[in-house]
């Protein structure tokens, strides 16, 4: 037997106190009366008395002492060890998105929790419980707790995820526990069917759920109308499905499609059920979002709508070239598309353009005294240092003979992205400049180990590209790769916040950090908020909830909002999935652990009985003395 609160034994001091009170109460009250004659005579008339009458005081004392002892016993909360009466349980509950399917009132996940609760409640006191939530990773909710209350409370608080389920991680966690205690009772609570299982009891929580989901939706604006189509899937049976469409948040009358959706298993491999909304007149020529919603209710609501957000590019595309001889750059940029380019001489820039704002500043053979802080900056052939440029000019090196460009061997994502389609084969130069960098720059091309073209960030955190040579001292501007290089560098300099607006739950979304970003806030569909590091050029975060994520970017004093939509994973939409195996390997034993018997209820009953008995004695005595 163990005592949970042994310090409470001090309350036994109440026993001597009660005895002291009893002794004090036993004292006879002395009193003088007119005559004791009748009192003495009354002895002869005293009939046979109830034997209890003379013992009420002692009985009351005994009962009160017993009650104090029992109360102290309850306070110290003894636990009586019952050898080999308890067992150890390990529950792995599938927390994947499919566990949110609902049949009637409860979801599969809730039914699974009910099953675990039932096993815990029926288990012997002292048993130990481990609960592992198996989502996209295995999370141990609690391990070997012997408190039913804690186990049930944490179980109650457990919520399902929307991602897939990492069966391997769940099995590994269970295996680890099994290796330590081969007698553990393993339970897997899931909606999947396993062809093979070993040392695990699988509790399947599947009911006859019917599910239809939208797989994708596309919208194209052309010729004054908007065309919307998408893909549906029915996972259980044939359904007639009606899809309603909302454009920019507003319902569009008559914009719906009703299609017969055969069950996926009856479709040819790789085939889906398409739906197409009749073309909708749309004069604005663009849209913000198109939302497609299945009108009918089914078991899983998380896949009943998809929102396609139009990829917006809010970056500034205005360019200023400050150069005494801008020909090469002008031609290359002009060849790449519709950029708003302003070309000025250094004198004109200092006179009239220094205070104007541009998305990209290209300084060729000219170094401003102060590096602009409101956009990306390219520095070409700069022979003096600008403040906050991230580098300083050191020297000029003239080569004895033309030397080729060496492509960087870096495998960094930025290098791969900027050198995509650029080799600079056959390009050479006869003179270059040496710089010292004090911010982060990635060399793209070098010669003799000296960076010739590098990309990175200046002291303002804005994207910066440095050409450590005069374009006129090289033939690179004449090569075909030059336009590709300038294109990649322009993409780098004018980053879109979003590369794409549609993801599946569990995927990593990429957020580009635009120039001058002060903060990037991500708000999940369920309202969780987190901030990304604006010092990083690229940020990634895992979308783990279905629905719309809102990305708020504060840049240059203004806040811009972008949205991406996260769809439930396709695997999670299938009501019944068959998996190969979920096994725990090893030879189980029948060892049992010591159980506990909590006599608290019995103690409380005894206290109540003794209290009642004491009360009856008290009332009897009171009646006798009335």
């Amino acid at each position: 037997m163990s005592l949970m609160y042994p310090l409470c034994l001090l309350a036994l001091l109440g026993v001597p106190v009660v005895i002291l009170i009893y002794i004090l109460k036993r004292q006879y009250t002395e009193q003088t009366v007119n005559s004791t004659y009748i009192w003495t005579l009354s002895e002869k008339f005293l009939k046979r008395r109830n034997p209890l009458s003379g013992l009420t005081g002692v009985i009351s004392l005994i009962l009160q002492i017993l009650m104090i002892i029992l109360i102290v016993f309850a306070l110290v909360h003894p636990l009586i060890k019952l050898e080999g009466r308890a067992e150890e349980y390990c529950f792995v509950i599938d927390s994947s998105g499919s566990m949110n399917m609902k049949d009637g009132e409860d979801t599969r996940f809730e039914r699974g929790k009910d099953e675990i609760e039932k096993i815990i409640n029926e288990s012997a006191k002292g048993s130990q419980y481990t609960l592992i939530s198996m989502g996209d990773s295995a999370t141990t909710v609690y391990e070997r707790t012997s408190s039913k209350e804690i186990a049930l409370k944490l179980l109650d608080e457990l919520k399902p995820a929307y991602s897939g389920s990492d069966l391997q991680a769940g099995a590994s966690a269970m295996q680890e526990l099994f290796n330590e205690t081969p007698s553990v009772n393993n339970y897997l609570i899931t909606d999947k069917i396993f062809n093979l299982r070993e040392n695990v009891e699988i509790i399947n929580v599947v009911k006859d759920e019917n599910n239809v989901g939208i797989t994708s939706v596309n919208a194209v604006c052309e010729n004054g109308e908007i065309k919307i189509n998408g893909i549906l899937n029915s996972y259980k049976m044939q359904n007639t499905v009606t899809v309603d469409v909302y454009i920019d948040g507003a319902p569009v009358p008559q914009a719906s499609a009703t299609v017969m959706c055969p069950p996926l298993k009856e479709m040819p491999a790789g085939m889906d059920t398409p739906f197409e909304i009749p073309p909708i007149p749309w004069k604005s020529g663009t849209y913000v979002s198109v939302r497609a919603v299945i009108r009918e209710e089914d078991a899983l609501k998380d896949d009943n709508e998809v929102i396609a957000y139009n990829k917006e590019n809010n970056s500034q595309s205005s360019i200023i070239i400050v150069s005494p001889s801008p020909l090469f750059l002008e031609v290359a940029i002009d060849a790449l598309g519709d950029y708003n380019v302003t070309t000025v001489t250094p004198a004109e820039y200092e006179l009239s353009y220094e205070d104007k704002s541009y998305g990209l500043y290209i300084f060729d053979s000219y170094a401003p005294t102060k590096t602009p802080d409101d956009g990306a900056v390219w520095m070409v052939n700069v022979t003096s240092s600008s403040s906050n440029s991230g580098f300083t000019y050191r020297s000029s090196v003239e080569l004895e003979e033309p030397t080729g460009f060496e492509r960087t061997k870096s495998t960094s994502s930025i290098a791969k992205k900027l050198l995509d389609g650029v080799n600079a084969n056959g390009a050479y130069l006869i003179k270059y400049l040496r710089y010292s960098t004090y911010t982060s720059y990635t060399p793209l091309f070098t010669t003799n180990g000296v960076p010739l073209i590098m990309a990175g960030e200046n002291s303002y955190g804005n994207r910066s590209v440095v050409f450590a040579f005069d374009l006129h001292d090289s033939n690179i501007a004449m090569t075909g790769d030059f336009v590709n290089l300038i294109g990649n560098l322009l993409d780098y300099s004018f980053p879109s916040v979003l590369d794409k607006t549609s993801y599946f739950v569990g995927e990593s979304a990429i957020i580009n950090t635009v120039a001058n970003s002060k903060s990037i806030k991500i708000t999940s569909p369920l309202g969780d908020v987190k901030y990304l590091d604006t010092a990083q050029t690229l940020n990634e975060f895992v979308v783990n909830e279905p629905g719309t994520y809102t990305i708020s970017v504060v840049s240059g004093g203004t806040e811009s909002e972008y949205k991406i939509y996260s769809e439930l994973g396709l695997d999670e939409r299938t009501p019944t999935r068959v998996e190969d195996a979920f096994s725990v390997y090893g030879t189980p034993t029948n060892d049992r652990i010591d159980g506990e018997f909590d006599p608290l209820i019995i103690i409380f009953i005894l206290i109540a009985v003794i209290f009642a008995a004491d009360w009856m004695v008290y009332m009897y005595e009171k009646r006798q003395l009335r």
Partner: protein
Amino acid sequence: MSKFTINEELLSEIESLASILKNNVAGMFGGNRQSKSFGSSCEFADYRDYMPGDDINRIDWNAYARFDKLYEKLYYDERQMHTKIYIDASRSMCHGGEEKAEQALKIAACFAYLSVCEMEKVSIYAIHGNELEEIIGGMVGKESFVTYINKLNDVEFFGDSHISEAIIPSSVGRGDGFSIVISDFLTDENYESAIDHLVSKKKDVVCIQVLSQDEINPQLRGKMHLFDSEDASKTYRKKIDNDIVKAYKEALRFVIERIKGYCEARGAYYLLAPASASVTDIFFNRLVDMGVLK
């Protein structure tokens, strides 16, 4: 400080009462009380043959005319009675409150007044131990009553009292009216001898038992160690509960019945006068009902 006060209205009401003597009236002096012997009162009693030497004024001449024989008319004699009131002046009569003592003194005063109103002589005694202490002796007439009755306030209640030992040796008189013993009779002392003695002296004995409310219905409960107010060596130690109180009441009833039965067997009167009872009730109801007064 006075132990009792007499309500004048009560006294004037008491004047309307008259005591009834059962025994032969044998007072020495003439008075208001009609004797069984023949005397000189106005109330006709009987005839007897005339004998020489008889008062010729009492010859009934009408009877002579009718029967031709001289008959002497006899009249009842009237004697003055001597009411003796004995008050138990032990400590038990006043311990824990003077209600019993006050009641005893009130009853004694009222009896005394009733007697003086009937032109009888009244003596009041306090019993202390074996002694009788005369408080008022031979009081006659209302004026004397007014003069002396305050002496009752001087009665001290202390020690114990032995009724028989005090009364028997004293001069109790013979056939001359009431002997009233006022006590709580809560004793195993031999008070019966006193009653016997008084009855044998042809006194009309009235035993008045004065009990306090606490004695009739004790409120004591719990563990008690009781000491006798007259004799501290007499103690009673018990946890007093309902059973004990029930036994107490039975014992009290036994004591009351015992003295009552003893009195009735000897032609004496017995009256239980709770200290809480009003004197008016005692005199106008209980004593009248008992036939002591009318």
